[in-house]
């Protein structure tokens, strides 16, 4: 069994998972209009840190806060702990060196793994963690997701005409496109939670990755990959026991339509969905981790007593035709 024993979020909305959760509950969004953050780039709406952050220190801070809050810092330097970094553009286009610096900072002896599967990286990294732990290759995994917005990324999405000049509206008929964002988020998974704080915040029960095999930048109109992922992770689970689904919800015309089709094909259209990008923007490599944490916290908040298990699904899609989903179990 793979248990989450610690987590953390650092975003423009605040420091710590709880602060971010409360900000979302209070309806506060990090989205602002930026007119001259980067040279030549047209004005864009995004959620960015007031003080530009450096990639590696930001990741380190997120890990430190996670393990401090949940009293498990001892696991960081162990040889049965693996560091997994989820990012799309790393530290100024270098993806591996930042991961090595983070792992080395905590005295971890193992070569870190970087998952770079476009916008699905954060969920894929958690699936990688789950598999490594279930195969007994490691006992603990520190999964960090992070991306910092740069002229490189913003210009590219503008070239794709994928950005909305206003705060995004996922699943709305008036949606005009996505907003970008930056953040760092950490989850720590363990197959031996009692060795540390003992608290299991949620169990990672299933994960699935599927390619649409359709187009490298547009999702399949029939939501093939997303549907197959949903089908995989909900196998054997009663739909009534699924309390919410964290969607990708980028608010582009095609993505949200595709997700709707996939959800309907999987028979999940009546389950409440949670779309977090109006609060954080699209945080790329951090999205899968950050949004998973908040979906789990939301489901836990709705649990009056721990008398039954509820399931939470998080799904994402990304460039390259890739789709991913995980299912978490909360409660008994």
């Amino acid at each position, binding site marked *: 069994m793979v248990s989450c024993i610690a987590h953390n979020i650092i975003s423009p909305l605040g420091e710590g998972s709880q602060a971010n959760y409360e900000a979302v509950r209070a309806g506060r969004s990090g989205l602002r209009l930026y007119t001259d953050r980067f040279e030549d780039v047209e004005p864009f709406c995004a959620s960015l840190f007031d003080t530009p952050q450096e990639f590696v220190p930001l990741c380190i801070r997120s890990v430190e806060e996670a393990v401090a809050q949940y009293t498990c810092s001892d696991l960081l330097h162990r040889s049965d702990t693996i560091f997994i970094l989820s990012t799309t553009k790393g530290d100024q286009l270098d993806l591996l060196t930042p991961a090595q610096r983070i792992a080395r900072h905590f005295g971890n002896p193992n070569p870190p793994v970087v998952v770079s599967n476009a916008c699905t990286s954060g969920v894929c990294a958690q699936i990688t963690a789950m*598999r490594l732990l279930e*195969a007994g290759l490691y006992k603990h995994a520190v999964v960090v997701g992070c991306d910092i917005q740069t002229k*490189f990324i913003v210009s590219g999405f503008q070239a794709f005409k994928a950005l909305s000049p206003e705060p995004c509206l996922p699943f709305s008929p008036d949606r005009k496109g996505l907003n970008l964002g930056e953040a760092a988020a950490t989850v720590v998974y363990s197959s031996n939670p009692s060795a540390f704080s003992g608290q299991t915040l949620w169990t990672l029960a299933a994960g699935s990755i599927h*390619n649409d095999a359709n187009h490298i930048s547009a999702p399949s109109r029939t939501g093939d990959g997303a549907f197959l992922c949903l089908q*995989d992770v909900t196998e054997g689970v009663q739909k009534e026991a699924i309390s919410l689904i964290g969607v990708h919800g980028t608010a582009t015309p095609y993505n949200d339509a595709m997700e709707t089709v996939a959800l309907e094909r999987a028979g999940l259209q009546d389950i409440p969905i949670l779309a977090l990008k109006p609060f954080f923007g699209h945080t790329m490599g951090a999205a899968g981790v950050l949004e998973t944490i908040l979906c789990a916290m939301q489901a836990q908040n709705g649990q009056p007593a721990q008398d039954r298990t509820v399931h939470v699904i998080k799904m994402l899609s*990304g460039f390259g035709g890739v789709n991913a989903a995980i299912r978490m179990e909360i409660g008994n």
Partner: protein
Amino acid sequence: MITPTSVVLDGKVVEVQQTGDKMLVELYRRFAGDYPKFFKMDTLCRLGFIAAEILLKHSAAGVQPSAVILANRSASIKNDTDYLATIRDGDYYPSPALFVYTLPNIVTGEIAIRHHIQGETAFYILDTPEELEPLIHSTLSAQPSAFSTVLAGWTECSAPNEFYAKLQLIWNN
């Protein structure tokens, strides 16, 4: 296995006339030739695409990999550099066609599209090819039925005419 000057398939050398990027085009014309999208691809994708094409054509007829799992050390740095040239301060014309290739996992997408693979596609950034083994192993053991045949390997491209690919078809018994 493909380097800028040589191609080796199952231990046997495949004769080529060209080197570097031109060699990849030569291989395309010889082993594929029916996929004009090849010319839109960046070097990393061409490398992975043609390596997969040669390997799959050579393998048992009709073999359909259920997953494509690749890794490298340099991500998409060569194409990132090409894209950067289109967003220079004051000379700013960001190219969407280049931007889409500034993610290393796109090569897995191109292979999936070509061979109709709706299974898993994944890309890892690692220090050495050996580090891919535990990732493959843990993937195969997670769901043996879903991963009967996996196309896996290392596709590295760090600069123009500097690339290296080593792909394998792994049968999960």
